[in-house]
């Protein structure tokens, strides 16, 4: 039976949340095609992550363990995964479209003599063929793409294309196979330094499950505090449309939209955001969108799941109280 190999990304012993989405994708494709799904984790001393992954419904989990994989670097990761893929010959290798994958996937594909369909948003079964969908022209068009070559095929999925919580747990823990790799030290051309977070980039909105986002309707800088209180009450992150960040009322790394971040939280609360297309493209993947705006014609309402026409300054304070009450 052809198999799908999902590459789980981990950092310092923790799986990246997007990996669950990729496992869900693998499980869905496998169900449609009648294939099996396996997963692989690469790193150093990663038994813990492998164990966590093995709880999912998978035929097997490979722990690609090597001291050379302690800190991410593209040469070592590509070499290690190449060895695994050559040995196991999966039909399809699935990866989340993360920064790390973007870095090493082209190298890995070239070394295998295969191509990658990158940044896919979905798939379908067209007859016996597996077809991937990817966006073009900043999301204006979608293109269907399929592999013309023999496997192993490589594909990456965009953040938010599948639901991580839909990744099925297995009836029993999947077997874990340690896959030893030897990496030629001479082939590793760069030495990663210590991990650090750039102070200004402290938030990763793409990982937030709840986002409270403010637009021009917030009127004044001092009112940002109100939105922050709502975000805190909900346990979410605060974000904004461009004018707010342009004014310097919130830092630029909190900007959502075509010139900021693209997010797909479970809940997106838009306060006083009119919903120009430039903003919409950054958040339309949210599971639920609640919009509060005093203009009933605001385009945001076209995509909102819950539309509240009214003055946010009347609505938000009692909302915060209600949330606090409900939570306590």
């Amino acid at each position, binding site marked *: 039976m052809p198999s799908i190999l999902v590459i789980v990304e981990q950092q310092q012993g923790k799986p990246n949340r997007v990996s669950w989405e990729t496992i869900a994708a693998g499980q869905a494709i496998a169900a449609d095609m009648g294939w099996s799904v396996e997963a692989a984790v690469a790193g150093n001393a990663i038994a813990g992550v492998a164990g966590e992954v093995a709880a999912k419904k998978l035929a097997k989990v490979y722990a690609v363990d090597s001291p050379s994989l302690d800190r991410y670097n593209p040469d070592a990761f590509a070499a290690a995964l190449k060895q695994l893929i050559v040995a196991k010959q999966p039909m399809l290798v699935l990866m989340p479209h993360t920064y790390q994958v973007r870095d090493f996937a082209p190298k890995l594909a070239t070394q295998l003599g295969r191509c990658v369909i990158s940044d896919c948003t979905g798939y379908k079964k067209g007859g016996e063929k597996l077809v991937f969908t990817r966006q073009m*022209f900043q999301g204006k068009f979608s293109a269907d793409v399929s592999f013309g070559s023999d496997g192993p095929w490589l594909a990456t999925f965009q953040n938010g294309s599948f639901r991580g919580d839909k990744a099925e747990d297995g009836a029993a823990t999947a077997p874990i196979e340690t896959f030893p790799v030897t990496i030629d030290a001479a082939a590793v051309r760069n030495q990663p330094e210590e991990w650090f977070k750039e102070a200004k980039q402290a938030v990763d909105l793409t990982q937030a499950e709840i986002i409270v986002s403010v637009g021009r309707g917030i*009127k004044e*800088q001092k009112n940002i505090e109100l939105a922050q209180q709502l975000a805190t009450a909900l346990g979410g992150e605060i974000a904004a449309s461009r004018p707010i960040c342009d004014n*310097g009322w919130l830092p630029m790394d909190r900007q959502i939209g075509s*010139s900021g971040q693209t997010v797909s939280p479970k809940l997106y609360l838009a306060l006083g955001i009119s919903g120009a297309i*430039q903003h919409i493209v950054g958040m339309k993947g949210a599971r639920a969108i609640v919009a509060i705006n005093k203009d009933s014609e605001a385009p945001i309402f076209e995509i909102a799941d819950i539309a509240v026409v009214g003055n946010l300054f009347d609505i938000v304070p009692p909302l915060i109280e209600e949330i606090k009450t409900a939570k306590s």
Partner: protein
Amino acid sequence: MLIFRKPIEGIERPEMPADVVIVGGGPAGMACALRLSQLIDEHNAIHPDSPLSKENIYVLEKAREVGQHCLSGALLDPRAMRELLPGFETEAPIEAEVSKEAVHYLTQTGQFKLPITPPPLQDHGNYVISINRFVKWMGEKVEAAGITVFTGFAGSELLYDGDRVIGVRTDDKGIDKQNQKKSNFEPGYDLKAKVVVLAEGSRGSLTKQLVSKFDLARDSNPQTYGVGVKELWELPPGRVAAGEVIYTMGYPLTTKEYGGAWIYGGKDNVISLGFVTGLDYSDPRLDPQRVLQEFKKHPFIAKMLEGGKMIRYGAKSLPYGGWWALPALAGDGFMITGDSAGFLNSARLKGIHLAMKSGMIAAQTAFEALVKGDSSEKTLGLYPKRVGQSWIKEELWKVRNFHQGFEKGFYAGLAHTMLQQVTFGRGLYARYPSHAGYERMQHLDALPANGGAEANLLGDAKGDGKLTFDKLTDLYHSGTKHEEDQPAHLVIHDTNICNTRCVKEFGNPCTHFCPANVYEMVEDTSSGQGASSEVPVKRISLNAANCVHCKTCDIMDPYQIIDWVPPEGGGGPNYDGM
């Protein structure tokens, strides 16, 4: 608080010697580079002992990729290309040869087709092209010829030694909103060049500095401009044939404004549709993007577009002034080509071939400067002389008074045009004067509050999302992107004028004429007055990252206090396929 881009002082910049630096990789710049390469190849074949190198010839292009900032209709008169690359048709990206043309006059709801197409608008033998694709292809030729194209690098300043131009400085990268260096700061390069060829396109920013510094336009008519706002549409089959050309005059403009529309049929049922509005209208509330939307609502056009889909958007200014508006074209160390100089035939609505030809003549002259080792005005002065002996002059001389004839409106323009037709382009006077278009803008209190006959051209377009679009939706389809954390590149020299004078006198026309929603008047909350006073105090605010580099603000601002300077290289619209 708005902070504007200005050169970073007191830093050392890497220097690079160059033979020729061509600023701008459009039709003029690329034609110049290609011709220069051909001349060097010929020279080296004849003089193998004293070869010239192409290694130190550079083209600077501020777009991330060649052609991304190029916008035009476009129809190509192949004359210059046939001289540059005979037989180019076999390999160049051409949409279609013009097979059918018509001129329609639109009234509010009706239209009639002119029984004969006026000779200047007869386009048989011309090609419908995407200027983006065409220039991209020229860029590949230039690179294959061994000339380096620096994409993502803008010319930010000219370097002078006294009265001599000695090079170009490229843009500093990695400057934050406050004009401070970021961790990725990279200073611009000082390219010390024997010859600088300015090919920046309409209202070039370096050309503007240069013309003003040396007063190069002292003997010229003021340059006049229009702004073309364009959409690409994908239509159901059978509406507009590939190679079909339709021009319209009239609605939605009144007889007071200059302008008109084009529709060019390309391949695969994609059409180029756009409206040029003369930047010499009088009502400051007029919005050229709105004009295009109103135009599409005309039954004749709406029917044509029904069921179609708008796929791309863009805007660009174009110089109308013609022969009398050309500045002095060369001096010590520099030559000015293409739209930067104003090589455009406004009667034919064509300038690409003239831009290319001017670039080719500049190449010939630059080549001689390299061979002679002299790039002073003595040698480079041959460039304007040769332009005067070429078919550029022949073509522009016939229409030297054309656009000026329209300064008093459509009917006067028609009368002058007819007179000029029978007097070999002369008309009533040997040299018709012209006025800078912004001078015609009137104060709000001199205009009807409801806009009068122009009411449907004023203010924001609403957009139904199918046939018509609001500005932000249109803008989205321009693919415009800039590094956000950088100072504003629309340098307003005195924002007090915007906030106190202009708001009363003209009602901030920048918020209307800008086709990209860069300029906005926002309620001023910083002073604390906004909330309390009855009339909210407004101040100018810039969405600089929206800018599509059309230069309309620099041209049309009634106080002439806006200088458009290049933002960090690589930013701007993405006119792929336009």
